[in-house]
């Protein structure tokens, strides 16, 4: 019961906090006060009370897009463990399902964008898919490296198995995986070196372009879905970087799980602050340079896989 509480309720409630934390970090770095931390919650509340307007050129695909995307990322959320407790859904090979659920969410966002018939949204869809062809192999290769490293095919066992010993003996591999995952995290969530979440300039937009025609509850679904997606990828990255704690330090089960959960949540806050800092100090890359960054992520993952395979 507590397990379900930790793995479902906490992410569902806290996911919209991540963009708020990133925005607050950026505001502090720029010397501003910034919007409230809970801004995304207010936005979601407002959007859910609005009606939706649909263009006559769109079909059911346009309406299905946000729902399927949200459903896919919520299912993905069920696969990722948080704070050392096993994920609600875990079986051998669930990491492949995770990658495909992310792909499904992207696919429906893209075809909903194409369904509007707007050339502008088609451009965004094209960019999103172009970059996805490079982030997806990097992500899958990272998962493959982690699976080989820990000798298991379930995300729960993989992320639970990365303890201090693994970190000490496989430091280069884990560093490669973490670097590649960070780039994938930034690219998938449309953060700064790849995409700028604030801009509405047509030359630079990727993710924002595709969702311009959605409004009301649909847009709320999209916003919430992207927050949950950020949470899912973020928990994986955080648990790769922070070693899993051994259970022996305390006899009380409660104390152990509370400590693990605390470390994971602190890691998520740290990740949000890191992303905010990256966005404050870096400019967005030119569109033609983005593939280079993503290819570098792929190179890191391939290197990690090679190094892991070499290990007896």
């Amino acid at each position, binding site marked *: 019961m507590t397990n379900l509480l930790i793995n479902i309720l906490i992410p569902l409630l806290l996911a919209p906090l991540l963009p708020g934390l990133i925005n607050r970090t950026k505001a502090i770095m720029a010397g501003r006060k910034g919007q409230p931390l809970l801004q995304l919650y207010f936005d979601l509340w407002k959007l859910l009370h609005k009606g939706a307007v649909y263009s006559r050129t769109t079909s059911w695909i346009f309406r299905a897009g946000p729902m399927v995307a949200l459903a896919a990322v919520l299912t993905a959320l069920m696969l990722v463990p948080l704070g050392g407790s096993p994920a609600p859904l875990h079986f051998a090979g669930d990491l492949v399902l995770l990658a495909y659920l992310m792909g499904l969410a992207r696919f429906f966002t893209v075809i909903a964008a194409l369904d509007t018939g707007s050339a502008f949204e088609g451009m965004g869809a094209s960019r999103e898919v172009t970059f996805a062809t490079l982030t997806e192999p990097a992500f899958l290769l990272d998962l493959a490296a982690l699976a080989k490293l820990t000798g298991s095919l379930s995300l729960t066992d993989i992320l639970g198995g990365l303890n201090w010993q693994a970190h000490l003996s496989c430091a280069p591999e884990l560093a490669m995986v973490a670097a590649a995952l960070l780039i994938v995290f930034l690219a998938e969530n449309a953060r700064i070196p790849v995409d700028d979440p604030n801009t509405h300039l047509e030359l630079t937009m990727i993710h924002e372009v595709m969702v311009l025609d959605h409004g009301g509850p649909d847009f709320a679904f999209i916003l919430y879905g992207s927050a949950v997606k950020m949470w899912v990828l973020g928990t994986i990255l955080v648990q790769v970087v922070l070693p899993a704690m051994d259970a022996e330090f305390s006899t009380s089960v409660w104390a152990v799980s509370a400590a693990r959960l605390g470390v994971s949540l602190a890691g998520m806050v740290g990740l949000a602050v890191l992303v905010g800092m990256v966005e404050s100090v870096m400019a967005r890359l030119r569109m033609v340079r983005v593939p*280079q960054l993503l*290819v*570098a992520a*792929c*190179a890191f993952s*391939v*290197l990690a896989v*090679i190094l892991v395979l070499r290990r007896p």
Partner: protein
Amino acid sequence: MNELIDALMVLLVLMNLRLLGSSRLSACIRTAALEGIALGLLPLMLVWKEGLSGVLIFLAAASVLTRGVLFPWLLLQAQRDANVQREAEPFLSYPLSIMAGVLTLVLSFWLSSRLPLPFASGTPLLISVGLSTILVGLLLIVSRKLAISQVLGYIVMENGIYVLGLALVREIPALVEMGVLLDAFVAVFVMSIVTHHISRQFDHIDADQMDSLKG
């Protein structure tokens, strides 16, 4: 110590990828210098357990000085003479170069697993990374147009041969080592002078345009 050597080898691979992916010449030259410094320290790590000798420390210092200070200095001078900041259009685009670099890595790991060596010192990573560094050097030489980038490719290739040599022979005799260092130094020296003359004569150092007649 083996973990440290492995980490150094991974660092070497990353620096190779940076050389393949960066268009700014000064950044490339600095990366090659870092590679040289890292390689200069490698023999010290290899014999750490048996204890260091004075000759070895002297050789490491000479190696670090030539590869990490002299070469970059000469190349930065040549770059300033030629007044070029970045390589605009290599034959192979930068993302493709990085992919090719990863491919050479896969190839050399496969090759080193098929290559039973009678005796090898250090870690098995030395051989595969040495092979891949040689291939990356070759790739830089054939895929870049500017003379300075090609000299960098030569230096990287030399680094790769050095790593491979360290993996195969336990201790390179001091005389041979000094000879190799001197040869490499003279080669880079001569190449930077040649680059200087090319840029004086043709107003560019684009090796691709060299076969067109100048009237």
